[in-house]
């Protein structure tokens, strides 16, 4: 049996006495597409922050591909192969969409160049291909600050994909995306993840999306994993309905 791509042991962190992670234990196998659901303030985003080193846990450890990454910086963790997409898109406001993606590509291929231009044939081709994949090719030349929120979310995901990660963590990828575009986005995303062999974990509020796409669901409440398993089973659970559906 292959070891889990991500393994979390006894993770704890509290902010002002409120536990955001309270002894979390979790394993994700390579190739999984897992959703995290739970009421607001349950600690879902904090969990992503803990996994990527933005917040350091009080106790516990995070193992990526069997190696301890606890306490490493977001940069070091990103370099090991974990990419992240954010709830609020994190883009470079002064640059065009294509330039944003090319910066991410340069980060992967080697940023330490001071005389050769960023805007080069190889990056343009790869960048445009990536934008086409997420359906943004027509907006390539636009400043990202002028894009509507849904497109900014996609751009944010494209930056993460440009890194060719082995594990992708996404914070509400479909929030801000219009209802009819949500399914198209998730469909494309699934396709990309499958062909690139990327394991992914995503925080989600839309239960229909979770039901349709997630391979496994993790229910988070008050810093604890309340339930975990196949979507149909978990979403039918009485406690889960009270915790999640009741709160949403």
């Amino acid at each position, binding site marked *: 049996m292959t070891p889990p791509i991500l393994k979390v042991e006894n993770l704890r962190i509290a902010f002002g006495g409120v536990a955001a992670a309270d002894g979390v234990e979790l394993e994700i196998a390579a190739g999984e597409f897992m959703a995290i659901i739970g009421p607001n303030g349950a600690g879902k*985003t904090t969990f992503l*922050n803990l996994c990527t080193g*933005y917040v350091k846990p009080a106790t516990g450890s995070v193992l990526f591909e069997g190696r301890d990454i606890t306490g490493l910086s977001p940069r070091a963790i990103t370099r090991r192969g974990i990419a992240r997409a*954010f*709830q*609020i898109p*994190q883009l470079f406001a002064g640059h065009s969409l294509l330039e944003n993606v090319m910066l991410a590509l340069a980060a992967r291929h080697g940023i330490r160049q001071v005389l050769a231009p960023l805007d080069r044939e190889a990056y343009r081709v790869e960048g445009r291909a990536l934008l086409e994949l997420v359906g943004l090719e027509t907006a390539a030349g636009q400043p990202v600050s002028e894009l509507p929120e849904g497109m900014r979310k996609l751009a944010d995901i494209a930056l993460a994909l440009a890194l060719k990660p082995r594990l992708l963590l996404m914070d509400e990828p479909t929030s801000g995306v219009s209802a009819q575009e949500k399914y198209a986005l998730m469909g494309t995303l699934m396709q990309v993840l499958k062909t690139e062999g990327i394991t992914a974990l995503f925080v989600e509020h839309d239960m229909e999306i979770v039901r349709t796409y997630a391979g496994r669901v993790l229910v988070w409440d008050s810093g604890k994993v309340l339930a975990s398993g196949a979507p149909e089973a978990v979403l039918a659970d009485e406690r889960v309905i009270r915790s999640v559906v009741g709160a949403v």
Partner: protein
Amino acid sequence: MLQALMPLLVDGLANAALIFFVAVGLSLVFSVLRILNVAHGSFYAIGAYASVSLSLWIVSAGLSPWLTLPALAVSAAIVAAILGPAVERGFLRWTYGRPESLQILVTFALFLIFEDLQKLVFGVQSLYQDAPVQLFGTSEIGGILYLNYQLVLIALAVLVVVALRLLMSYTRFGKLMVAVVADPEVSQALGIDTRRVYMAAFTLGVFLAAFGGALASPTVGVAPGTGPEAIVLAFAVAAIGGLGQIEGAALAALVVGVVRVLAIYFAPEFEAVVPYLVMLAVLLVRPYGLFGSVRVRRI
């Protein structure tokens, strides 16, 4: 050693008191308006010029020299009443919410303009009027002679720390300022007239700087170069204390004053460097100053 240190210490603390006035004003303005005012030292210099001019006039007009004492506060109040609203309404408000580099540049431009205006209005020679120091006289404690005026300066600084704390905690204006510092947008939504709070806070900052300058003028006088020197010292002290911290600025001024005395005693050539070395040392350990705190960005 104590015999030799004591007069130095009083001197150092009196100096620290003066820097404190400038630093706490700078800090206050920064926390409310979110602008680092490079021209803040100019208010110190202008306050000094105004008070010396007023005192010189009082003495030459043959009025009682005791009038030079209220003149210190009155001149600072006049400077603040004129320049505070004019600078805030005329220039600073156009920069709210703009990049910090731009705000610093605007205030730097104001600094340059004030530098030359001072020369035009007050001339380039150094001015001096020590009637207030003479009036207070000296006292002998343990065989050492002290200037009473310096003791008064130290007491005044303590008084201002207490007064500012009371102002912030117990008055309506203080609470409004605290609210605006915490969240300007919410404050505005709650119906607080943030424009007036900005103007009042800035004017208070100008007054504190001008008052510091006025108080300094009877001991060291005033000359071109006073403003640029005051602002860098005030920066250092405000940063050591943590920007926006009243007690922090007081403690920082105290620390700088004492370390400066030690430097004068042990290594005089390093005296001028002390405030900056203390600042570098403090910020190396606590990047946001002794009392400052970090705001973590939400992602």
